[in-house]
């Protein structure tokens, strides 16, 4: 088993290698010379050349990549020339709201999707089932930022139930913190629940057709325990995969949706960086998110072993 875990971890190396090359090239290919941007309009050609040499921009590409990679591996993502601080610091400072939204959305999505998906599978073909399928189809057709705007229009502008924009950190009180996150969390979570509900339904349907369920039924096991004990446990594997994979999507979704609600998270950081052409920050953010994504997938794979002892190594 440990060998399997080690093998699995080792298999991440090529993927992360490609991720790092893409992130590196992204900045390398940006139009304009970062050095002349840094030094401003008045810099002389000699000054620019000196700084270029000093910063290693005159080195061959592979050497530049190598130096950059060494820094990244030490947790140094470079400096934001616009904010005058290390990119790592900037990301950490903005991470709180984004992670909060993503986690909240994931909770909301699971809370909606599991019961809804199970119900639909239980009463397959019924009006309830059709309603759920309609919900999932529509949910998958709505971009989460659009749903955020609709919620803002209804819950914020028309009904005035929730604040329309802004953010309060957890230290100002839990309710205060939650009410600002609730709308973006709902927007992302409800949309994401469509996908998870659909997966739950089809996964449950597959299990409910299995022989061991028929055996349990003929033994006279109660329907409740068939659904929640026998079937759900077995249907959980694909559901967990989707939940895990969607966390990466939720993180990306949170980045987009927080810009609507003026929440000072990673999204705002990215948008500001685009405007100020602060490419090091953008590079840092996508590197970090991709890293998260790869690690989450690893964790899901390892979780399989806990849930389903049949998974071979």
């Amino acid at each position, binding site marked *: 088993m440990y060998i399997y875990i080690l093998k699995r971890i080792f298999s991440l190396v090529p993927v992360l290698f490609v*991720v790092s090359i893409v992130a590196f090239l*992204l900045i390398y290919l940006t139009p304009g010379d970062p050095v002349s941007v840094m030094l401003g309009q008045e810099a002389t050609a000699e000054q620019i050349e000196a700084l270029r040499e000093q910063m290693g921009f005159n080195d061959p590409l592979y050497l530049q990549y190598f130096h950059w990679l060494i820094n990244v591996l030490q947790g140094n993502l470079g400096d934001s020339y616009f904010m005058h601080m290390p990119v790592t610091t900037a990301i950490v400072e903005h991470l709180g709201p984004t992670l909060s939204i993503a986690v909240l959305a994931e909770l909301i999505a699971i809370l909606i999707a599991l019961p809804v998906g199970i119900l639909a599978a239980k009463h397959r073909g019924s009006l309830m089932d059709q309603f759920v399928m309609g919900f999932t*189809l529509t949910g998958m057709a709505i971009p989460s930022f*659009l749903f955020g705007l609709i919620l803002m229009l209804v819950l914020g502008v028309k009904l005035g139930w929730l604040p329309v924009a802004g953010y309060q950190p957890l230290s100002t009180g839990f309710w205060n913190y939650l009410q600002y996150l609730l709308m973006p969390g709902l927007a992302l979570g409800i949309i994401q629940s469509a996908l998870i509900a*659909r997966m739950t339904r089809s996964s449950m349907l597959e299990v409910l057709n299995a022989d061991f369920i028929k055996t349990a039924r003929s033994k006279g096991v109660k329907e409740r325990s068939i659904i929640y004990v026998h079937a759900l446990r077995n249907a959980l594997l694909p559901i967990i995969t989707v939940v895990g994979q969607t966390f990466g999507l939720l993180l990306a979704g949170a*980045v987009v949706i927080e810009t609507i609600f003026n929440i000072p998270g990673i999204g705002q950081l990215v*948008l500001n960086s*685009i405007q100020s052409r602060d490419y090091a920050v*953008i590079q840092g953010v996508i590197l970090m998110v991709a890293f998260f994504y790869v690690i989450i997938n690893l964790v899901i794979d390892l979780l399989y072993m806990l849930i389903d002892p049949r998974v071979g190594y």
Partner: protein
Amino acid sequence: MNVVEVNVNPKRVKHDLKKQERSLLLRRFLSNKLMVTGSIIIVLLLLLAILGPKLTPFDPYEMVVKERLEAPSSHHLLGTDNFGRDLLTRIIYGAKVSMWVGFASALLSSIIGLAIGLTASYYRYLDNILMRICDGLLAFPAILFAIALMAVLGAKTENVIIALTIVFSPEVARIVRSRALVVREETYIEAIRSQGASAARIIWKHIAPNTISPLLVKATFVFSEAVIVEATLSFLGAGVPAPDPSWGNILSDGKDVIYTAWWMTVFPGLFIILSVLGLNLLGDGLRDLIDPQSSTK
């Protein structure tokens, strides 16, 4: 001597078979109500995108300050935006942009994905390299990767298509590869190879056509994803640049006036939902049509 002459024209038999097959497909298509609905939605949207600009009396760029933020009326069916431009007209021109970006990205990533997927499946020594590159590219969430690419490329409609093609090609490549891996093991490929056919001929003439069905399904979903991502990019100001209309940047303008002008959020939003829904229904239907066993119903 009784020789019964059977007049069988092989060409004719093949023709009849094809006809039969086609009518079977047609019947299966018509029996799938959701797919028919999806197709109708998409055809209507395409018609709107193509013919709409000729039908509307308004100019999508002309600003009429006097008429800014007018609610829907008989003069401006869907109201006006914050610059006094007719909203319906902007949405129609937006449909043109969104459909074009979605279609072009789906087409380009299909071509590139097909080439990569086939190469990976046929040349085993390239497989590992190509697939690890795809894995690495797929580790970036689509929307963030697209944002980063647009930050580098600059906000321009053509760049949106380039960015989306880079984002979606690896997904297509994976689908094509997994199908092609199955096909290349078939006996008839073996037979063709033993006759001395060149690699290029085997790949393009004999393997590629067999990957078209899953590719088509995937392309439909790439189209719908692309519509969503384009709208998101334009909403964030990193996609189709103003003043060109796109559903995403109309929504972005609408967000600033969400307190007064609900129509600027609701109508472009409805068009995005309709087009994505239509494409998804079409994609689901195509998948059921091609592979009835994978149907989730």
